[in-house]
């Protein structure tokens, strides 16, 4: 999808501070000088084309439940099937392949610490691979709402 100036403005202005009022898209429209319908149809298109995963709140992980970063060293020839099994486990998000002996990295979430441990133990058994468990000790910067560098993009 080719983004035009208005799409980029929407992204530049509204990665945070989405209005909380009866007609939030109307307020955004007024700020950008377009119609409410246009805001809604642009957001819908951006979502359909996977430019946006959604419009809405990001919950703070440490307050919204328990989570940790986990990794496994999957045999390279089986990485796809191991990844698929990880994806099936309850509470998993952000599963990435990375170039390292620990080649699959994912975030496991659960309503509380006890459930988190249970989920990891269960997955460890299913995979028959030890899971590296790396809970956050201290966060210095945890927000993916950074300014998009449009100039650098292809």
């Amino acid at each position, binding site marked *: 999808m080719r*983004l035009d100036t208005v799409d980029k403005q929407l*992204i530049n202005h509204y*990665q*945070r501070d*989405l209005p*909380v009022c*009866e*007609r939030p*898209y*109307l307020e955004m429209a007024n700020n950008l000088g377009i119609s*409410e319908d246009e805001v*809604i149809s642009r*957001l819908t298109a951006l*979502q359909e084309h*996977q*430019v*946006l*995963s*959604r*419009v*809405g*709140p*990001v*919950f*703070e992980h440490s*307050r*919204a439940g328990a*989570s940790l970063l986990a990794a496994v060293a999957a045999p390279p020839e089986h990485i796809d099937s191991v990844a698929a099994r990880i*994806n099936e486990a309850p*509470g*998993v*998000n*952000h*599963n*990435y*392949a*990375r*170039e390292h002996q*620990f080649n*699959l*990295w994912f975030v496991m*979430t*659960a*309503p509380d610490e006890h459930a988190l441990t249970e989920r990891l133990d269960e997955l460890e058994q299913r995979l028959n691979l030890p899971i*590296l468990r*790396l809970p*956050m*000790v*201290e*966060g*210095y*910067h*945890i927000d*993916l709402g*950074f300014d*998009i*560098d449009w100039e*650098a*993009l*292809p």
Partner: protein
Amino acid sequence: MNNQAAQTTPQTSNFLFDTEAFSAWGLLRLRQHLEGGLPLTPRPYLELAERTGLTEQQVMGAIQHWQHQGLIKRSGLIVKHRTLGYNANAMVVWDVPDIQVSQLGRTLAAVSFVTLCYQRPRRLPDWPYNLFCMIHGVNRERVLNQLDQMIADHNLGGIPHSVLFSNKAYLQRGGRYVSNS
């Protein structure tokens, strides 16, 4: 409000259900719905209200309260960086002496192209690294140049590190703490 009157003449609705429990359940449902994103309709909060048995005012009030509390850290357009062309995502991990890790974490967090930065425990002997930072970049070469610049700017040459580029995203979605319990 007249408390005495409330105590002596219970409202008829209390015979049907406990209103407080009903709205607690509604708030939990609201969290679930919000994790999936706002409806793209003119009155999204009203639509969420109808789905959760709350009023539109209660929905907006709950969201503002959660923002104020810090349970919601931001609210807006959630970008999928890969679709935009951020194709090189590097997790850079460092083995920093414990006594320096907090200070270095704060320093690296302030670097403009560092998008995430946090401390995690070592798991010896498999995993010696205790500081993580993420660079979301357009391509590998550019990210490696940014990393070199960071090492030079902050005298990190003596700190063992490793760069883990991601070459495939098997799953990328927001945390769903409530939905799949």
